[in-house]
Protein backbone atom coordinates (compact mmCIF):
# COMPACT_ATOMS: atom_id res chain seq x y z
CA UNK A 1 0.00 0.00 0.00
CA UNK A 2 1.55 3.30 -1.05
CA UNK A 3 2.43 5.74 1.68
CA UNK A 4 0.55 9.06 1.48
CA UNK A 5 2.69 12.14 1.11
CA UNK A 6 3.35 14.18 4.25
CA UNK A 7 1.20 17.23 4.65
CA UNK A 8 3.11 20.43 4.67
CA UNK A 9 2.97 22.10 8.04
CA UNK A 10 1.61 25.55 8.48
CA UNK A 11 4.45 27.93 8.45
CA UNK A 12 5.01 31.65 7.90
CA UNK A 13 5.67 33.09 4.46
CA UNK A 14 9.23 34.10 5.23
CA UNK A 15 10.04 30.65 6.40
CA UNK A 16 8.37 29.20 3.36
CA UNK A 17 10.46 31.44 1.10
CA UNK A 18 13.63 30.39 2.85
CA UNK A 19 12.71 26.76 2.48
CA UNK A 20 12.02 27.25 -1.23
CA UNK A 21 15.37 28.98 -1.75
CA UNK A 22 17.17 26.27 0.14
CA UNK A 23 15.35 23.64 -1.94
CA UNK A 24 16.43 25.35 -5.20
CA UNK A 25 20.02 25.70 -4.00
CA UNK A 26 20.12 22.09 -2.87
CA UNK A 27 18.72 20.88 -6.21
CA UNK A 28 21.28 23.01 -8.09
CA UNK A 29 24.12 21.68 -6.03
CA UNK A 30 22.95 18.12 -6.51
CA UNK A 31 22.70 18.71 -10.29
CA UNK A 32 26.16 20.31 -10.40
CA UNK A 33 27.68 17.45 -8.44
CA UNK A 34 26.03 14.92 -10.75
CA UNK A 35 27.40 16.70 -13.84
CA UNK A 36 30.91 16.96 -12.36
CA UNK A 37 30.89 13.35 -11.22
CA UNK A 38 29.70 12.20 -14.65
CA UNK A 39 32.28 14.32 -16.46
CA UNK A 40 35.07 13.15 -14.16
CA UNK A 41 34.19 9.56 -14.78
CA UNK A 42 33.80 10.07 -18.52
CA UNK A 43 36.52 8.19 -20.48
CA UNK A 44 36.22 10.78 -23.19
CA UNK A 45 37.35 13.58 -20.91
CA UNK A 46 40.11 11.41 -19.45
CA UNK A 47 41.43 10.62 -22.87
CA UNK A 48 41.07 14.26 -23.94
CA UNK A 49 43.29 15.25 -20.99
CA UNK A 50 46.04 13.35 -22.61
CA UNK A 51 45.66 15.07 -25.98
CA UNK A 52 48.63 16.89 -27.28
CA UNK A 53 47.63 18.46 -30.60
CA UNK A 54 50.71 19.43 -32.62
CA UNK A 55 49.16 22.58 -33.94
CA UNK A 56 48.22 24.00 -30.49
CA UNK A 57 50.80 26.01 -28.50
CA UNK A 58 52.16 24.38 -25.38
CA UNK A 59 50.58 26.85 -22.98
CA UNK A 60 47.19 26.05 -24.56
CA UNK A 61 47.63 22.30 -24.49
CA UNK A 62 44.87 20.60 -22.40
CA UNK A 63 47.41 19.01 -20.08
CA UNK A 64 49.09 22.37 -19.46
CA UNK A 65 45.76 24.06 -18.82
CA UNK A 66 44.66 21.31 -16.47
CA UNK A 67 47.95 21.37 -14.58
CA UNK A 68 47.67 25.14 -14.17
CA UNK A 69 44.13 24.83 -12.96
CA UNK A 70 45.11 22.07 -10.53
CA UNK A 71 47.92 24.21 -9.10
CA UNK A 72 45.57 27.15 -8.64
CA UNK A 73 43.00 24.88 -7.07
CA UNK A 74 45.59 23.49 -4.63
CA UNK A 75 46.49 27.05 -3.65
CA UNK A 76 42.86 27.94 -3.08
CA UNK A 77 42.40 24.73 -1.09
CA UNK A 78 45.32 25.55 1.16
CA UNK A 79 44.13 29.12 1.75
CA UNK A 80 40.60 27.93 2.45
CA UNK A 81 41.97 25.34 4.85
CA UNK A 82 44.05 27.90 6.69
CA UNK A 83 41.11 30.24 6.95
CA UNK A 84 38.92 27.44 8.24
CA UNK A 85 41.53 26.49 10.86
CA UNK A 86 41.81 30.09 12.00
CA UNK A 87 38.06 30.32 12.30
CA UNK A 88 37.93 27.07 14.22
CA UNK A 89 40.74 28.17 16.56
CA UNK A 90 38.94 31.44 17.18
CA UNK A 91 35.40 30.28 17.49
CA UNK A 92 35.57 26.65 18.64
CA UNK A 93 36.46 27.51 22.31
CA UNK A 94 33.75 30.16 22.42
CA UNK A 95 31.18 27.87 20.90
CA UNK A 96 32.22 24.96 23.11
CA UNK A 97 32.02 27.17 26.20
CA UNK A 98 28.58 28.36 25.19
CA UNK A 99 27.44 24.81 24.56
CA UNK A 100 28.96 23.35 27.69
CA UNK A 101 27.62 26.15 29.87
CA UNK A 102 24.15 25.22 28.71
CA UNK A 103 24.58 21.54 29.42
CA UNK A 104 24.27 19.71 32.75
CA UNK A 105 27.45 17.70 32.33
CA UNK A 106 27.29 16.29 35.82
CA UNK A 107 23.76 15.08 35.25
CA UNK A 108 24.69 13.65 31.86
CA UNK A 109 27.65 11.76 33.32
CA UNK A 110 25.62 10.55 36.25
CA UNK A 111 22.83 9.28 34.03
CA UNK A 112 24.79 7.80 31.19
CA UNK A 113 28.18 6.81 32.59
CA UNK A 114 28.74 3.81 34.89
CA UNK A 115 31.43 5.34 37.07
CA UNK A 116 31.98 2.08 38.92
CA UNK A 117 32.87 0.30 35.71
CA UNK A 118 35.21 3.11 34.75
CA UNK A 119 36.97 2.96 38.13
CA UNK A 120 37.23 -0.82 37.89
CA UNK A 121 39.02 -0.45 34.58
CA UNK A 122 41.62 1.87 36.14
CA UNK A 123 44.76 0.20 37.48
CA UNK A 124 44.96 2.15 40.72
CA UNK A 125 47.94 0.12 41.92
CA UNK A 126 49.97 1.23 38.96
CA UNK A 127 48.90 4.81 39.55
CA UNK A 128 49.89 4.69 43.20
CA UNK A 129 53.17 3.00 42.31
CA UNK A 130 54.06 5.91 40.06
CA UNK A 131 53.50 8.41 42.85
CA UNK A 132 56.64 9.42 44.77
CA UNK A 133 55.12 9.56 48.25
CA UNK A 134 58.48 10.33 49.84
CA UNK A 135 58.86 13.45 47.78
CA UNK A 136 55.32 14.45 48.63
CA UNK A 137 55.87 13.91 52.34
CA UNK A 138 59.09 15.90 52.21
CA UNK A 139 57.25 18.84 50.80
CA UNK A 140 54.79 18.77 53.69
CA UNK A 141 55.66 21.07 56.58
CA UNK A 142 54.72 18.73 59.41
CA UNK A 143 55.97 21.15 62.04
CA UNK A 144 53.54 23.77 60.83
CA UNK A 145 50.78 21.18 60.64
CA UNK A 146 51.43 19.93 64.15
CA UNK A 147 51.77 23.48 65.45
CA UNK A 148 48.28 24.14 64.24
CA UNK A 149 46.87 21.21 66.18
CA UNK A 150 45.60 21.85 69.67
CA UNK A 151 47.09 18.79 71.29
CA UNK A 152 45.89 19.79 74.72
CA UNK A 153 42.32 19.79 73.54
CA UNK A 154 42.87 16.47 71.78
CA UNK A 155 44.40 14.90 74.85
CA UNK A 156 41.67 16.30 77.08
CA UNK A 157 39.20 14.40 74.98
CA UNK A 158 40.97 11.11 75.59
CA UNK A 159 39.98 9.06 78.59
CA UNK A 160 43.44 7.96 79.64
CA UNK A 161 42.14 6.33 82.78
CA UNK A 162 39.95 4.02 80.73
CA UNK A 163 42.88 3.16 78.49
CA UNK A 164 45.14 2.54 81.45
CA UNK A 165 42.51 0.30 83.03
CA UNK A 166 42.72 -1.94 79.96
CA UNK A 167 46.48 -2.32 80.19
CA UNK A 168 47.97 -5.48 81.64
CA UNK A 169 50.80 -3.82 83.51
CA UNK A 170 51.89 -7.08 85.10
CA UNK A 171 52.68 -8.49 81.67
CA UNK A 172 54.52 -5.34 80.68
CA UNK A 173 56.57 -5.34 83.86
CA UNK A 174 57.29 -9.04 83.45
CA UNK A 175 58.87 -8.29 80.08
CA UNK A 176 61.17 -5.66 81.59
CA UNK A 177 64.51 -6.87 82.90
CA UNK A 178 64.39 -4.71 85.99
CA UNK A 179 67.57 -6.19 87.40
CA UNK A 180 69.54 -5.43 84.26
CA UNK A 181 68.08 -1.94 84.12
CA UNK A 182 69.03 -1.24 87.73
CA UNK A 183 72.49 -2.63 87.12
CA UNK A 184 72.95 -0.27 84.16
CA UNK A 185 71.80 2.66 86.27
CA UNK A 186 74.15 1.75 89.07
CA UNK A 187 77.01 1.29 86.63
CA UNK A 188 76.24 4.65 85.03
CA UNK A 189 76.23 6.57 88.30
CA UNK A 190 79.18 4.55 89.67
CA UNK A 191 77.39 3.72 92.89
CA UNK A 192 80.43 1.89 94.31
CA UNK A 193 82.40 5.12 94.09
CA UNK A 194 79.62 6.97 95.91
CA UNK A 195 79.53 4.35 98.62
CA UNK A 196 83.28 4.42 98.94
CA UNK A 197 83.30 8.19 99.11
CA UNK A 198 80.58 8.25 101.75
CA UNK A 199 81.83 5.43 103.94
CA UNK A 200 85.44 5.14 102.99
CA UNK A 201 88.18 5.81 105.43
CA UNK A 202 91.78 6.75 105.17
CA UNK A 203 92.73 3.09 105.61
CA UNK A 204 90.63 1.91 102.67
CA UNK A 205 92.05 4.62 100.48
CA UNK A 206 95.54 3.59 101.54
CA UNK A 207 94.84 -0.05 100.76
CA UNK A 208 93.35 0.89 97.42
CA UNK A 209 96.34 3.01 96.57
CA UNK A 210 98.71 0.22 97.61
CA UNK A 211 96.85 -2.28 95.44
CA UNK A 212 96.87 -0.02 92.39
CA UNK A 213 100.53 0.73 92.94
CA UNK A 214 101.23 -2.99 93.06
CA UNK A 215 99.29 -3.58 89.86
CA UNK A 216 101.15 -0.79 88.08
CA UNK A 217 104.48 -2.13 89.30
CA UNK A 218 103.52 -5.63 88.16
CA UNK A 219 102.76 -4.36 84.68
CA UNK A 220 105.92 -2.32 84.52
CA UNK A 221 108.12 -5.25 85.54
CA UNK A 222 106.33 -7.60 83.17
CA UNK A 223 106.82 -5.24 80.24
CA UNK A 224 110.44 -4.64 81.13
CA UNK A 225 111.23 -8.34 81.43
CA UNK A 226 109.39 -9.14 78.23
CA UNK A 227 111.38 -6.52 76.34
CA UNK A 228 114.62 -7.82 77.85
CA UNK A 229 113.81 -11.46 77.07
CA UNK A 230 112.72 -10.68 73.53
CA UNK A 231 115.86 -8.64 72.94
CA UNK A 232 118.00 -11.55 74.10
CA UNK A 233 116.07 -13.95 71.91
CA UNK A 234 116.43 -11.68 68.91
CA UNK A 235 120.13 -11.23 69.51
CA UNK A 236 120.58 -15.00 69.85
CA UNK A 237 118.56 -15.71 66.72
CA UNK A 238 120.05 -12.96 64.56
CA UNK A 239 123.52 -14.49 63.97
CA UNK A 240 122.04 -17.80 62.86
CA UNK A 241 119.50 -16.08 60.71
CA UNK A 242 122.17 -14.13 58.91
CA UNK A 243 123.99 -17.25 57.77
Amino acid at each position, binding site marked *: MPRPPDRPARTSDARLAVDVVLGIVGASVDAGLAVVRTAAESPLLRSAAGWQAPFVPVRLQPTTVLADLARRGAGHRARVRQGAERLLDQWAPVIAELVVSRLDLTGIVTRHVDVDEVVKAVDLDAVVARIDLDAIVQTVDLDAAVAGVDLNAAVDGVDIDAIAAKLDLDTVIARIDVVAMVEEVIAAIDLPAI*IRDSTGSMASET*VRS*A*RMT*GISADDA*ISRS*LERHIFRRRRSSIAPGAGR
Partner: protein
Amino acid sequence: MTDDELSLVPAEARPYQGTAAGIVTRLAANSLDALVVVTALVGAYAGLVAFRFVIAPRGFQLPEPPFQWFLVLFLGFLVTYLTAAWWVSGRTLGDHVMGIRVVTGRRSRSSLVIAFGRALMCAFFPIGLLWCAVDSQRRAAHDLVMRTSVIYDWLPRPTAPRR
Protein backbone atom coordinates in the same frame (compact mmCIF):
# COMPACT_ATOMS: atom_id res chain seq x y z
CA MET B 1 76.36 -7.54 82.86
CA THR B 2 79.33 -9.23 84.43
CA ASP B 3 80.08 -9.25 88.10
CA ASP B 4 82.98 -6.87 87.90
CA GLU B 5 80.86 -4.21 86.22
CA LEU B 6 78.58 -4.12 89.19
CA SER B 7 81.09 -4.92 91.83
CA LEU B 8 82.62 -2.87 94.52
CA VAL B 9 85.78 -2.86 92.49
CA PRO B 10 86.84 0.66 91.48
CA ALA B 11 86.60 1.43 87.82
CA GLU B 12 90.36 1.70 87.38
CA ALA B 13 90.89 -1.82 88.82
CA ARG B 14 88.09 -3.57 86.94
CA PRO B 15 90.22 -4.46 83.92
CA TYR B 16 92.56 -6.37 86.19
CA GLN B 17 89.89 -8.21 88.16
CA GLY B 18 90.42 -11.95 87.78
CA THR B 19 93.73 -11.67 85.93
CA ALA B 20 97.01 -13.15 87.14
CA ALA B 21 98.80 -11.12 89.80
CA GLY B 22 102.38 -9.99 89.26
CA ILE B 23 105.57 -10.27 91.23
CA VAL B 24 105.40 -6.98 93.11
CA THR B 25 101.93 -7.48 94.48
CA ARG B 26 102.73 -11.05 95.50
CA LEU B 27 105.98 -10.06 97.13
CA ALA B 28 104.18 -7.37 99.08
CA ALA B 29 101.52 -9.82 100.18
CA ASN B 30 104.14 -12.38 101.21
CA SER B 31 106.04 -9.74 103.14
CA LEU B 32 102.91 -8.83 105.02
CA ASP B 33 102.26 -12.49 105.74
CA ALA B 34 105.78 -12.87 107.02
CA LEU B 35 105.24 -9.84 109.20
CA VAL B 36 102.04 -11.38 110.53
CA VAL B 37 103.85 -14.61 111.36
CA VAL B 38 106.72 -12.75 113.01
CA THR B 39 104.20 -10.74 115.02
CA ALA B 40 102.48 -13.96 116.06
CA LEU B 41 105.82 -15.47 116.94
CA VAL B 42 106.80 -12.47 119.02
CA GLY B 43 103.42 -12.57 120.67
CA ALA B 44 103.87 -16.24 121.47
CA TYR B 45 107.30 -15.54 122.88
CA ALA B 46 105.91 -12.68 124.96
CA GLY B 47 103.14 -14.93 126.18
CA LEU B 48 105.63 -17.62 127.11
CA VAL B 49 107.76 -15.09 128.97
CA ALA B 50 104.74 -13.75 130.82
CA PHE B 51 103.63 -17.28 131.66
CA ARG B 52 107.04 -18.19 133.06
CA PHE B 53 107.16 -14.93 134.99
CA VAL B 54 103.80 -15.67 136.54
CA ILE B 55 104.79 -19.24 137.40
CA ALA B 56 108.23 -18.44 138.90
CA PRO B 57 108.73 -14.74 139.36
CA ARG B 58 111.74 -15.03 141.66
CA GLY B 59 113.82 -17.26 139.47
CA PHE B 60 112.63 -15.54 136.32
CA GLN B 61 115.14 -15.18 133.55
CA LEU B 62 114.45 -14.04 130.05
CA PRO B 63 114.48 -17.18 127.92
CA GLU B 64 116.95 -17.03 125.06
CA PRO B 65 116.10 -19.83 122.66
CA PRO B 66 118.61 -20.55 119.92
CA PHE B 67 118.03 -19.13 116.42
CA GLN B 68 117.28 -22.58 115.05
CA TRP B 69 114.30 -22.83 117.36
CA PHE B 70 113.08 -19.47 116.23
CA LEU B 71 113.51 -20.49 112.59
CA VAL B 72 111.70 -23.78 113.11
CA LEU B 73 108.85 -22.09 114.91
CA PHE B 74 108.67 -19.41 112.23
CA LEU B 75 108.41 -22.01 109.48
CA GLY B 76 105.87 -23.98 111.48
CA PHE B 77 103.77 -20.92 112.13
CA LEU B 78 104.09 -19.86 108.50
CA VAL B 79 103.04 -23.23 107.09
CA THR B 80 100.13 -23.50 109.49
CA TYR B 81 98.98 -19.95 108.80
CA LEU B 82 99.26 -20.22 105.01
CA THR B 83 97.56 -23.63 104.91
CA ALA B 84 94.65 -22.50 107.03
CA ALA B 85 94.20 -19.21 105.16
CA TRP B 86 94.34 -20.67 101.66
CA TRP B 87 92.13 -23.61 102.57
CA VAL B 88 89.49 -21.55 104.33
CA SER B 89 89.27 -18.43 102.19
CA GLY B 90 91.88 -18.71 99.46
CA ARG B 91 93.70 -15.64 100.73
CA THR B 92 95.93 -14.71 103.60
CA LEU B 93 95.90 -11.41 105.40
CA GLY B 94 98.63 -10.13 103.06
CA ASP B 95 96.64 -11.36 100.06
CA HIS B 96 93.58 -9.59 101.39
CA VAL B 97 95.43 -6.32 101.83
CA MET B 98 96.93 -6.51 98.35
CA GLY B 99 93.70 -7.72 96.73
CA ILE B 100 94.83 -11.10 95.42
CA ARG B 101 93.55 -14.65 95.84
CA VAL B 102 94.92 -18.17 95.34
CA VAL B 103 92.71 -20.25 93.05
CA THR B 104 92.95 -23.78 91.71
CA GLY B 105 91.96 -24.05 88.06
CA ARG B 106 88.35 -23.00 87.85
CA ARG B 107 87.73 -23.64 91.52
CA SER B 108 87.86 -20.63 93.74
CA ARG B 109 89.51 -22.31 96.72
CA SER B 110 92.29 -24.81 97.20
CA SER B 111 91.80 -28.13 98.91
CA LEU B 112 93.55 -28.83 102.18
CA VAL B 113 96.21 -30.96 100.53
CA ILE B 114 96.98 -28.40 97.85
CA ALA B 115 96.99 -25.59 100.39
CA PHE B 116 99.37 -27.54 102.60
CA GLY B 117 101.70 -28.47 99.74
CA ARG B 118 101.74 -24.92 98.48
CA ALA B 119 102.44 -23.60 101.99
CA LEU B 120 105.37 -26.03 102.35
CA MET B 121 106.89 -24.89 99.06
CA CYS B 122 106.37 -21.24 99.90
CA ALA B 123 107.99 -21.68 103.28
CA PHE B 124 110.97 -23.81 102.24
CA PHE B 125 111.50 -22.58 98.67
CA PRO B 126 110.43 -18.94 98.76
CA ILE B 127 112.71 -18.00 95.87
CA GLY B 128 110.38 -19.96 93.60
CA LEU B 129 108.08 -16.97 93.74
CA LEU B 130 110.44 -15.09 91.43
CA TRP B 131 109.52 -17.43 88.56
CA CYS B 132 106.19 -15.62 88.22
CA ALA B 133 108.10 -12.60 86.95
CA VAL B 134 109.22 -14.41 83.81
CA ASP B 135 106.38 -16.88 83.40
CA SER B 136 103.91 -15.99 80.64
CA GLN B 137 100.99 -16.78 82.93
CA ARG B 138 102.65 -15.26 85.98
CA ARG B 139 102.87 -18.58 87.77
CA ALA B 140 105.46 -19.14 90.46
CA ALA B 141 107.24 -22.44 90.99
CA HIS B 142 104.75 -23.60 93.61
CA ASP B 143 101.89 -22.60 91.29
CA LEU B 144 103.32 -24.78 88.54
CA VAL B 145 103.78 -27.72 90.89
CA MET B 146 100.44 -27.44 92.68
CA ARG B 147 98.52 -26.24 89.57
CA THR B 148 97.35 -23.08 91.25
CA SER B 149 97.39 -19.46 90.26
CA VAL B 150 97.12 -16.12 91.98
CA ILE B 151 94.71 -13.55 90.61
CA TYR B 152 93.72 -10.00 91.39
CA ASP B 153 90.48 -10.20 93.30
CA TRP B 154 89.24 -7.15 95.12
CA LEU B 155 85.90 -8.69 95.96
CA PRO B 156 85.09 -10.30 99.28
CA ARG B 157 83.84 -13.37 97.45
CA PRO B 158 85.97 -15.38 95.04
CA THR B 159 86.01 -14.40 91.38
CA ALA B 160 86.47 -16.87 88.55
CA PRO B 161 89.91 -16.45 86.96
CA ARG B 162 90.09 -14.90 83.46
CA ARG B 163 92.40 -16.01 80.73
